[in-house]
């Protein structure tokens, strides 16, 4: 399949909600658009060979940060959105130098623990975050006097960020930064022997991907208008892993396709909610057995050494 055709199909899918024109479809489309940048941020870390379970926590930090800045300090929404994401970036920048010295399973466990701790803080610090009963009344997003109220407005906002984050991740992938990441992932000893500062690249990727996750979180907060710790938990990490595995890690198109397929699943399986995890498991096994490179391998066959 030609890449251009894939983009035509994706663009048509992106426009589909207007054709169907129901609130419900727009809601699902908006959730897909919020999750795509998150799946992309996890993909960036996977390109460096590190599976980060912490990104839902960075989304949560972005979401709560944005919400609290607008609610408590009356920050303009755009400023709150950027500040919330920058806060996630700073946290990633602080913990990154410690976490990223560790590789493999232990890195996964560390980021898991980090995510759980952040989630516990959201749950237990009720004074600030509202605890499990949640944080109500996040004001609506507005920019240049334009106040976003309808679900369609938030869909457009989320789509704009999908395009921006996809373009950024694609640019990274195609540039020499992509070559650097691939080299560090493939043969770190060789890369370091010619001078690559591996840790600094990992910190940069971790911080940048936390920023992207943070913006997604902020958009989510404005859209939903109510925050509880639950959506930023381990379950979302699993979803993001599934998106990357089904879509494919080798290209940024992978997590995009993965998100389009995985996010609507709970809605499609609404009648059989208890089977959702089972279906996830079966899908994962099928993809790991028969399509290691994910869906993108159907579009861009991985070139083989001659």
């Amino acid at each position, binding site marked *: 399949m030609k890449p251009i055709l894939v983009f035509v199909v994706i663009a048509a899918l992106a426009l589909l909600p207007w054709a169907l024109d129901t609130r419900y479809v727009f809601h699902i489309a908006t959730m897909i658009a919020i999750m795509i940048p998150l799946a992309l941020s996890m993909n960036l870390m996977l390109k460096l060979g590190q599976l980060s379970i912490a990104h839902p926590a960075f989304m949560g930090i972005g979401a709560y940060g944005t919400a609290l800045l607008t609610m408590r300090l009356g920050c303009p929404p755009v400023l709150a959105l950027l500040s919330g994401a920058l806060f996630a970036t700073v946290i990633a920048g602080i913990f990154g130098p410690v976490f990223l010295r560790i590789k493999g399973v232990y890195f996964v466990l560390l980021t898991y623990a980090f995510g759980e701790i952040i989630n516990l803080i959201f749950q237990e610090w009720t004074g600030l975050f509202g605890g499990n009963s949640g944080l109500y009344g996040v004001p609506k997003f507005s920019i240049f006097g334009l106040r976003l109220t309808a679900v369609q407005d938030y869909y457009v906002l989320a789509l704009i960020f999908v395009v921006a984050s996809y373009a950024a991740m694609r640019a990274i992938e195609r540039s020499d930064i992509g*070559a*650097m990441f691939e080299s560090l992932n493939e043969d770190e*000893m060789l890369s*370091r*022997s010619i*001078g690559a*500062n591996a840790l600094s*690249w990992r910190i940069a990727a971790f911080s940048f991907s936390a920023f992207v996750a943070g913006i997604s979180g902020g958009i989510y907060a404005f859209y939903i208008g109510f925050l509880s710790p639950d959506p930023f938990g381990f379950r979302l990490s699993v979803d993001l892993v599934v998106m990357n595995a089904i879509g494919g890690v080798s290209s940024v198109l992978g997590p995009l396709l993965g998100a389009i397929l995985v996010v609507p699943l709970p809605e499609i399986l609404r009648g059989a909610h208890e089977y959702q995890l089972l279906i996830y498991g079966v899908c994962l096994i099928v993809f790991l057995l028969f399509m290691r490179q994910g869906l993108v391998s159907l579009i861009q066959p991985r070139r083989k*050494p001659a």
Partner: protein
Amino acid sequence: MGHLLEVRGLTRRFGGLTAVSDVSFAVEPGEIFGIIGPNGAGKTTLFNVIAGHYRPSAGKVAFEGHDISGHSSDEIARRGIARTFQAVHVFTEHTAKENLRRAEVIGRRHNPIAYFAHRKRAATADPREIAGFVGLTEAFDLYAGSLAYGLQKLLGIGMAMMVAPKLLLMDEPAAGLNPSEKKAAAVLIRRLRDERGITVLLVEHDMPLVMGVCDRILVINQGKPIALDTPSVIKADATVIEAYLGEDYEFA
């Protein structure tokens, strides 16, 4: 003054085992310096401490007068010390050309700040020219993983050259090569020094190669230095011969 690399009182212990014990030597600019010793003598450990893979337990390593002991391998590389590996290390799913180009980019734009700051700085070397130098012109556009072992080792030397090192550390450059490739490797090592001015420190098992290319040789046994001299003196040294006694080494 004037030593390119100076190793002083270097000791490396692993638990109760002392792999390298109080080794001192200096490598002069423009020299080809060899380190030999029987199996398990501590050559590789010594090499890995100099290359920054292990921290020294005691002693120090200085490069151009700066103490580099305990620095990480990438810090050491950025100071101008490149290395090659005993086993092949190349990016197998890319062409020889892309491997060489990547090595240069990785070296010049080594961290995110340098990446943007050094964007416009001229490349330190030209992949095609380096490929010609090491003898990979015909393999230039082939996938590195598809190349014969000997060519992959040459590619490794080419990649190290792409970062324009002052000192090249070579870990058993002859390992895995056939006799004619070994001869070619010896010629290449000499040309690295003569035509490029790169000082070479090599660790090697292959006696004809070491005796043929090195200006001076350090012999270590059981982690301790036992001789340091020119090849002709080393060949005749009684303690060296004794250290190798019972092994099938021929001092050709």
